[in-house]
């Protein structure tokens, strides 16, 4: 059904720390790997070894430069995948019921057996989170690794999305954002987590943690004042050594 379910208590999603992300694209690759071998049609590539390679990815890392009014510009790496919105416009536009939001945990999924590949859900998404796979002709999107997080055949530490599991800098966190006491909710609270394009009213579940304040670049170091010479006249043993060495 493409009607949105009643808002569930459980809201599984990601919290992405823009302060910590180093832009290594490991999450992009692990996502492509897991989702090509598992749930649904594989993520195909076209002309992969030719002149104009392109392909389907569920997660991509943009890099931006932000220029504050004062101080140095900051480079910020920006991973982007489906935000599993509470008010997901991609779900309600689907004519076949292939696109749906799960009532029990809020994950937005595509039932590929019902998808006609019209692409309207990708048009409705502001975030570019959906890509029509050219080989399979069906819509692909982040599943929040629904085939990992509940998979009892995997060791417990692997029961989180592939992107989170692989992130070497700990910039990606997975959890229940519907539970105010969960680790991810506390993180959002402490760091002032934000929504992307809030003006469009999609109410994303995934949150982004803005970079922590940087120094302004006016001082070399807060320890700099302590580095100034403290004694101009030398005395004692070092004074004698200084004077003696001068004479030689």
């Amino acid at each position, binding site marked *: 059904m*493409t*009607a949105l379910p009643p808002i569930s208590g459980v809201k599984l999603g990601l919290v992405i720390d*823009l302060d910590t992300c180093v832009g290594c694209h490991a999450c992009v690759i692990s996502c492509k790997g897991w989702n090509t071998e598992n749930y649904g049609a594989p993520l195909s590539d076209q002309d992969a070894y030719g002149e104009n*390679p*392109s392909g*389907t*990815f569920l997660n*991509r*890392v*943009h*890099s*931006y*430069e*932000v*220029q*504050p*009014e004062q101080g140095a*510009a*900051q480079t*910020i790496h*920006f991973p*982007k995948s489906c935000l599993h919105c509470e008010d997901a416009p991609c779900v*309600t*536009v*689907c*004519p*076949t*019921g292939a696109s749906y939001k799960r009532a029990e945990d809020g994950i937005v999924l595509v039932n590929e*057996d*019902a*998808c*006609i*590949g*019209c*692409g*309207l859900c*990708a*048009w*409705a*998404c*502001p*975030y*570019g989170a959906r*890509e*029509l*796979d*050219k080989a*399979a*002709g*069906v*819509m692909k999107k982040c599943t929040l690794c629904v085939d990992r997080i509940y998979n009892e055949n995997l060791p417990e530490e692997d029961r989180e999305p592939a992107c989170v599991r692989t992130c070497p800098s700990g910039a990606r966190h997975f959890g229940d954002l519907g539970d105010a006491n969960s680790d991810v909710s506390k993180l959002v609270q402490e760091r002032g987590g934000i*929504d*992307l*394009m809030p*003006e*469009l*009213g999609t109410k994303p579940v995934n949150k*982004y943690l*803005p*970079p922590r304040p940087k120094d302004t670049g006016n001082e070399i170091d807060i320890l700099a004042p302590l580095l100034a010479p403290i004694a101009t006249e030398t005395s004692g043993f070092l004074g004698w050594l200084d004077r003696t060495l001068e004479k030689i």
Partner: protein
Amino acid sequence: MHPAPSVILFSVLSGLGFGMLAWLGIGKPPVTGMSAFIFFFVAYALSVGGLLSATFHLGNPKNSLKAFSQWQTSWLSREGCCAIAALTVMGIYAAGAIFLETHWMFLGAIGSILSIGTVFTTSMIYAQLKTVPRWNHWTTPLLFVALSTFGGALMTGQVIVAMYGFVAVGLIQLVAWLTSDNRFTERGSTLETATGLGSIGKVRMFEPPHTGTNYLLKEMVYVIGRKHAIKLRVIAMLLMVFIPVLMIGMGAKHDIKAVIAVLSHLVGVFASRWLFFAEAEHVVGLYYGKRG
């Protein structure tokens, strides 16, 4: 947005076909027998042909039947249901007119409403999208419905209605163009709101996420068309409105002037519809530094 030829062909031809059906449904002109067959044949060829061309746009058309199921939420599903209902009702009405030489008025009226309803649902597929500010406005359904209604009037020989209607179409088109040019900016989505980094400062793209192209860029970050937008707008307006109005004003009726009016209008609507897609900017372009 990528101006897919199949979608442009579909929306223009089916719009005209359903417009014809709407007039035929209220007995204008009150044709029966062989001449009714010809009118209905043209109307069905346009509307059904348009619908079929739209299926070429699908990545996985084998599941098409399922598209009639989600009419409660999806405008695309509503369009499918409405189109089938209109074609069925008008089919029965047409059979009465062709074979029994009778007009079932009530059935025809319902068929007319369903025909215009189909065009309205088509327009709402675009008008509902907040992600494409240029489309997300009342002028979109008004323009689609007006084009279909008065294009249909021309095709069914209601030339005086068509003449005044085209003047209205021209005004609606003008309002649609003029009010939509700044709407992307007015809605306030920027790279700063898209990334949430505006509180730090001015954001610009440093590195795209991929060196080549992808589905998103091909489908939603189409930028080529805007170069000649002004020239194309003038051409569209001349062909879609001015020349047909001029031809009708010169007394077009079952002659070469009528043929010129129809062909000119059709080509003009194609140009207008091409611009409708090519000029539309999707907010996802912000993430790629391709907007503003």
